[in-house]
């Protein structure tokens, strides 16, 4: 490697910019094909053993296979094939869930491997090296057209950066050194100017690397809840093994005591079939697919969860901390009212306010101009004569206009009052009252003065987002407490909280106060979710059970949180909670469905099992299935097909409606519990009819 100062080579071929979130159809042809192949690779016993339920099915398949080879009959071969298909279907479901993530990971991986870095050497020289060789603390230079090789903080320069590769958002964003916008992500591309970046990620630990790992599910570990469910399924599997195995001695003994002809031996193939039908194969087959798909759904919404645990925790969240600005309110305050004081007319006030705001390009300023036009048709005037705009500064806390000797100012009440007083004017007594009223209503008062005269107050209203109230009502129904976090004073905060319908608010919030609030909630046993972007949010993000960092935020924030929202949209927190819930609901619903299915299968198989010893058991054959063997085969076929039929549900998740726990439960018990009881009766009968129609029997 030689140090050169050679000009930058042509930018490496990067794949078409596309965010991870680039959505693909659930049943993309390419993914389907790949999944089918993977279904067979997953037959490896080392893979199978991780899923106790499906492992039992696989072992059962081997047993029936041996039996079928030893005593070949149509029935034993048919059962063997369908059991094999059951295993394949389960593998397929998992492969499908992984498929989309894998495809996305491939795209990302290509992006990573082809990037070349320009490393700054201590002597000021530059060195080219592959991005993968950068380590933490290295300085790299990126100029227009370069792909930023790794994650880091800008220490020099300002540039527009195309982050579409990560976020899918095509509009470039501005990144600059210092402040909360200094973080850059490896894989994004500098569009203009030049940046010096200090690498903050260890080798192989970059955001891109983690993202690849996540979407691919490479090191996917079972989440706590998934683990608990796996144990329950294992219990349900273990209990049925002796139940089924014992049927052989039971059968023998029954033949003896009943004096029936024959030995009462139960066909091994039927026993295996019964076992497979009884153990919770439906949920067992789909369990990991549900988990992967849940993560994937988050990715579809441009949220990266650093662990499945975080997704589950999201479903459990009881307290949501939401930043006011951008989440609850539009973020811009709008002028909503002119309140004249001291006998001045409203129009007078409006006119002065409009003049003072002409040069004010902030959204607040624009909104004053707009309001004046709406209320009194005061048009934007071309200013003639000598005029000078006075810009807002943090010291004066006012802005305005000097025009032909008139000095018009608008600004914070205290500042304007002092300014008027300095000129020898006296603010009218009623002013304080008006200012307070406006504040109490949750709005911001701007006082307008013309020289020594105070004309009145402009009410700047914080506009609450449309539909947010309904959203919070839903949250409340779901048992989630929403807390608004704002820097506003308590009066303003209370008013906005009231209007938006949040349950509580934290006014004049400091990072410390935020942290204290989280801890207090957690002490009470609650799970807390929050969003944040600034470095000072990092401790709170780390403390919260679900911390969603904005992608625009600092590296520190992103590392502290357990999710990153690539769209940097704080409202997304609500979606995250819903996805978490949906994930758990899907598991619960399919577990219930799976267990409820057993009833019908019993009615299909038990009469068949002991037909020789006790023909009178055929009374239990309520479905009137054609023959004992067709009954067993129908049950096994149903058992296999139901897995495939439920793959889309597993991948999309059970439909989630924000409602109270009781309502959700009632609905799901009806659909998946009662439905799970009834559906198999219908379909096993249908399959039996089809088998007969096909002359299989």
């Amino acid at each position: 490697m030689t140090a050169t100062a050679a000009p930058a080579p042509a930018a490496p071929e990067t794949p078409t910019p596309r965010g991870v979130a680039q959505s693909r159809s659930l049943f993309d042809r390419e993914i389907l094909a790949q999944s089918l192949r993977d279904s067979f690779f997953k037959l490896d016993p080392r893979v199978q053993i991780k899923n106790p339920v499906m492992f039992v099915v696989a072992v059962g398949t081997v047993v029936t296979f041996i039996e079928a080879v030893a005593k070949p009959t149509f029935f034993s071969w048919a059962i063997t094939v369908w059991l094999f298909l059951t295993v394949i279907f389960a593998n397929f479901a998992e492969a499908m869930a992984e498929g989309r993530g894998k495809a996305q990971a491939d795209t990302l991986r290509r992006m990573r491997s082809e990037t070349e870095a320009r490393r700054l050497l201590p002597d000021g020289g530059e060195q080219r090296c592959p991005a993968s060789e950068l380590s933490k603390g290295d300085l790299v230079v990126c100029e227009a057209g370069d792909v930023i090789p790794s994650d880091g903080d800008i220490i020099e320069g300002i540039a527009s950066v195309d982050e579409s590769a990560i976020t899918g958002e095509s509009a470039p964003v501005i990144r600059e050194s210092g402040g909360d916008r200094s973080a850059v992500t490896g894989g994004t591309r500098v569009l203009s100017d030049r940046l010096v970046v200090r690498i903050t990620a260890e080798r192989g630990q970059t955001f891109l690397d983690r993202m690849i790992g996540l979407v691919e599910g490479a090191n996917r570990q079972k989440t706590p809840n998934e683990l608990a469910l796996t144990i329950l399924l294992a219990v349900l599997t273990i209990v049925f093994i002796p139940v089924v195995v014992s049927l052989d001695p039971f059968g023998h003994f029954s033949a003896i005591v009943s004096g029936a002809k024959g030995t009462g031996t139960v066909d091994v193939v039927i026993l295996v079939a019964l076992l497979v039908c009884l153990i919770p194969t439906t949920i067992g087959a789909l369990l990991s697919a549900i988990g992967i798909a849940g993560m994937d759904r988050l990715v579809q919404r441009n949220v990266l969860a650093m662990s499945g645990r975080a997704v589950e925790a999201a479903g459990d969240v009881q307290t949501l901390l939401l930043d006011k600005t951008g989440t609850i309110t539009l973020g811009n305050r709008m002028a909503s009212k002119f309140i004249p004081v001291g006998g001045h007319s409203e129009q007078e006030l409006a006119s002065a306010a409009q003049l003072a705001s002409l040069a004010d390009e902030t959204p607040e300023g624009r909104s004053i101009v707009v309001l004046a036009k709406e209320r009194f048709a005061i048009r934007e005037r071309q200013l003639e004569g000598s005029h000078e705009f006075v810009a807002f500064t943090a010291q004066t806390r006012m802005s305005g206009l000097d025009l032909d000797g008139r000095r018009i100012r608008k600004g914070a009440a205290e500042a304007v009052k002092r300014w008027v007083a300095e000129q020898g004017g006296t603010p009218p007594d009623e002013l304080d009252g008006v200012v307070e009223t406006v504040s109490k209503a949750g709005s911001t008062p701007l006082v307008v003065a013309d020289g020594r005269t105070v004309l009145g107050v402009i009410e700047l209203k914080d506009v609450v987002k449309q539909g947010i109230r309904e959203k919070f009502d839903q949250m409340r129904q779901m048992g989630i407490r929403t807390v608004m976090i704002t820097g506003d004073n308590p009066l303003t905060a209370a008013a906005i909280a009231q209007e938006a319908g949040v349950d509580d608010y934290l006014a004049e919030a400091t990072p410390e106060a935020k942290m204290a609030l989280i801890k207090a909630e957690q002490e009470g046993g609650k799970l807390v979710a929050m969003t944040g972007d600034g470095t000072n949010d990092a401790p709170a993000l780390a403390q919260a059970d679900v911390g969603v960092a904005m992608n625009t935020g600092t590296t520190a924030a992103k590392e502290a949180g357990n999710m990153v929202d690539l769209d940097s949209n704080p409202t997304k927190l609500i979606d995250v909670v819903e996805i978490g819930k949906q994930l758990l609901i899907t598991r619960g619903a399919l577990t219930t469905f799976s267990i409820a299915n057993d009833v019908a299968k019993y009615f299909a198989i038990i009469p068949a099992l002991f037909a020789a010893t006790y023909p009178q058991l055929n009374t239990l054959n309520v479905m009137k299935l054609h023959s004992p063997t067709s009954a067993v085969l129908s049950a096994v076929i149903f058992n296999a097909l139901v897995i495939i039929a439920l793959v889309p549900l597993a991948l999309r998740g059970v439909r989630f409606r924000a409602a109270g726990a009781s309502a959700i439960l009632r609905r799901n018990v009806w659909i998946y519990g009662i439905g799970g009881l009834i559906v198999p009766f219908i379909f096993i009968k249908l399959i039996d009819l089809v088998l007969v129609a096909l002359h299989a029997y």
Partner: protein
Amino acid sequence: MLVVALGITWRYLGSYMAGVFEGRVRYLAWAERPFYRVLGTSPEQEQTWKRYAGSLVIFSAVFLGFGYLLLRVQGSLPLNPQHMGQVTPALSLNTITSFVTNTNWQNYAGETTMSYFSQIGVLTVQQFVSAAVGIAVAIALVRGFSRRNSSTIGNFWVDTTRCLLYILLPISFIAGIILVGEGAVMTLAGPVTVHDALNGVTQTIPRGPAGFMGSIMQLGTNGGGFFNANLAHPLENPTAITNLLYIWLTLSIPFALTYTFGKMVGSIRHGAALLAAMAIIFGVWVGFTVYAEHTNNPAVAAAGVHSTVGNTEGKEVRFGDTSSALFNISMTHTSDGAVDSATDSYTPMGGFGPLSGMMLGEVTPGGVGSGLYTILVYAVIAVFIGGLMIGRTPEYLGKKIQAREVKLAGVAALVMPVTVVVLTAVAASLHAGRAGPLNSGPHGFTEILYALTSQGNNNGSAMAGLSGNTAFYNVVGAIAMLLGRFAIIIPALALAGTLAAKQTVPAGLGTFRTDNGMFVGLTIGVIIIVGGLTFFPALSLGPIVEQLSHGKFW
């Protein structure tokens, strides 16, 4: 009347028991304190779940050994007016295991096998102790729910002592007096010989301290009677009133413990929810069985005798069909197992009632203590599945149900069905086992299944046609009883330990409600599905096929 009486007991006995275990009821402290001093413990010395379980297991083991010895040497001990000989080793093992585990399975005929010394010093003592141990475990598990961030779950010695002193002793003593007043025999004078001049019959009537044994055997859901015929015997269960009193004694504590539970966790509604789940299943089964017993006995009907009063075979006139069926369901849905009529001679579906009742794990309402801790295990599973369905990591009474809890509850729920099914398969395979049943046909299978279900559930009810006093059934039964008791108690205590250590999550609108009808339904669903799915094949080879065999006799 029974319902009213149970309602009153539920409210007041339940509340009283909570007071006892929370140490608020202390009028017998003068008796408690010296006992603790001798033991070297005190109510303040709380135990972790491991020490609690350790105390319990060793206490039971020592009692087991001690009782075994006494039975083996009963011939040389006093209070033996009939000069009963030693009890055989296999029978001693089965009997003492049976009483220590609250099963009270009896492979012996009391009046011809056991001396007064054994009946009093071994069997009656165990009827007190095994009941107290069961209740102690339930209370420990309740503490698991009511405490937060706690490493201890109570003191085994204190819980057991308080239960014995404050709950079992007074109630059984008073009930004993009522029973004797109604005609139950209570003497140590030995058998009496009488002669009837009207018919020339000379009878030697066995007697003994049956009345006071009867009261504790029922109050502690033990069920091991003084006589072979158990509570069908007129000298232990002389009238319809005593029959009802026995039912009340049996059901009172198991039902009332749900109130105690509600009170201790601070939500009576939660206790009521469990009560509802228990009562609904119980009521349905009573109705079903009463109905079944009001049909003709197939064999009697086939002999040309058609009954308008139902199946009278094996039932006493003074109780009648309804009372007998109610009694039988009460005893098999608790861990009592006493009988006032011959279950073996019930109609197929009438026998299905008690058998399936035991197969549900005896939680409706179950044995003293064991009913509560077992239904809590089922409730944990119900909460887990139900909680998932609303999209939350499930929690019960604010305790998150996670992998460890599911594992412990799973093991506890798994033990009984696996034990019963495996041991029944063993019995049905071996010659020694196949020789047991009196009846042939599916009923013979039912007898074996019933015996192992009963012992695996620590019930003690029997289809008495099975010749159980053989080396094989004595030993297999002992294994079933030990597993059915301790393999559930230990995970239940572990569950108590892990729950007590947990933080409590406050309930909100999004919390899965565990005190309403939906939860009751879900718990019932889990109980029925777990029991039903595991035992349906076996049941189909027993009572179900027997019911379907119209006109067939074996």
